[in-house]
């Protein structure tokens, strides 16, 4: 396997893909949003229980490639307990990681996604669940789609 490909499919990603965390609908969710990637048919629902401005619980459901499933799973572990401002900041960092390959500032599993930048067609796979989560957070009724933003 080439260096690029093994960078893309890192162990963290394979692990999250095989054993997704926080998968399924939270019964107590008070926010949710749907995301889809029309180029490839990937779908992702994100469910939140917001407690004030803080994400008390978060889960996802959907189908897609290893990158998109692992990204959604890892995202739920990262966003749990965060305020919306913190979530925005994390997304910004994640976005930079997947588009430029830059390593995260602090040691974080998000770094496992740095290999994505060498596969531009897969960047949307990695960011789909994050867009849905941010839409849920903002109470945006429109489904997130990877077509309406630039990655």
């Amino acid at each position: 396997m080439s260096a690029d490909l093994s960078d893309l499919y890192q162990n963290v990603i394979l692990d999250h893909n095989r054993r997704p965390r926080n998968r399924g609908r939270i019964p107590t969710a008070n926010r949710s949003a749907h995301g889809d990637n029309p180029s490839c048919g990937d779908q992702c629902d994100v469910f939140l229980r917001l407690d004030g401005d803080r994400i008390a619980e978060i889960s996802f459901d959907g189908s897609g490639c290893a990158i998109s499933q692992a990204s959604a799973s890892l995202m739920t572990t990262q966003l749990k307990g965060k305020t919306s401002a913190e979530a925005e900041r994390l997304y910004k960092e994640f976005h930079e990681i997947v588009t430029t390959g830059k390593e995260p500032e602090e040691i974080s599993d998000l770094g496992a996604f740095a290999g994505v930048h060498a596969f531009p067609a897969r960047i949307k796979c990695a960011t789909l669940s994050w867009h849905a989560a941010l839409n849920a957070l903002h109470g945006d009724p429109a489904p997130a789609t990877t077509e309406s933003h630039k990655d």
Partner: protein
Amino acid sequence: MPPTWDRIRDQFPILDQKVNGRPLVYLDNAATTHKPASVIAALDRFYARDNSNVHRGLHALSMRATDAYEGARSRVKTFINAAAPEEIIFTRGTTESINLVAASWGAANLRKGDVILLTEMEHHSNLVPWQLVAQRTGATLRYLPVTGDDGLLDLASLDRVLTPEVKLFAFTHVSNTLGTINPAAELCARARALGVTTVVDAAQSVGHMPLDVQAMGCDFLAFSGHKMASVTGIGVLYGRRALLDAMPPWQGGGGMISSVDFHESRWKPSPERFEAGTPNFGDAVALGASCDFLDGLGRDEIRRHDADLAMEARDRLSELPGIRILGPGGERGGLVSFAFSGVHAHDVVTFADEDGIALRGGHHCNQPLMRRLGLTSTVRASFYVYNERREIDALVDSMRRTIKFFGAGG
């Protein structure tokens, strides 16, 4: 000198390259085919020698360009055995051809209460245009079902869905996801018996097998050059002359009018009526060259070659653990589409690319069919004249490595 099968790969310059260090194995022909040197050269030669705007010109280059363009029309007429060159309308491709029929014929002939019959295996390009015209006219859509993973049309249901309210029946000749070859002549005959107009989507068939519109008995037929060894930007709508001449124009502009006044215009007959603006005569010339190329190889031979590869690939792939293969058990068009339990199509395609193999993964513009079969995506390997048995070996090896990596399938 007609092209021959022996050294056929030499005629496709693009095949002579490595991808990720491995020889390119191009199995994405249902998306678009490659172009032989003779077609690229025809385009080149046209622009370097005869280029000029057509029709209205009286100078030498314009007359040559007009002859080349109308010559391409006659070549296509012969290729599909239309009754007259006036039945060949040049469009950008299958999608535009179907939109033309939907907008022009549909607006003039459909009203509330009418039914447009489609099948569950239609490509978005033979589905969305009908949704749009249904919205505008108040007609409704109805679907002839697919039987299941074996990908056949449920012909036993045809009587139930082909009722007197049906005004138009649009269906694909060969499915781009299932590989099914539908019995087009029979479907057209059944429709004609009820006075139902037929539209055949021949995107996946015309470059792969003999096709005779008069024998098929369709009213309209649509296809794309880029899926038959020609370039992008050119395609064809075939229509029976009597239908075309009764249809209102779709796009307006230069070339399609017989006279224009500030407030009213009159139209030319077909094909000009439907070719507003400067036509894509350059790419039409390339399409004519592709017809020559394919007939040089022989379309019966192409059909056999592509089907043999597809059936062999299907049989070999079916030995892999956890695979689900779509489409008919017997003869099929030159493609096979499949899914693995536990590995997503996009991961499969990315791994195959590492091995230099070009596959397509996704919904293949067949979302409703996918949903109907309980899938979101499949991997598709599709073959054309330059593909070889050894490429099936490479495909199967790559699939094996991928499912092993993901620890899936077994």
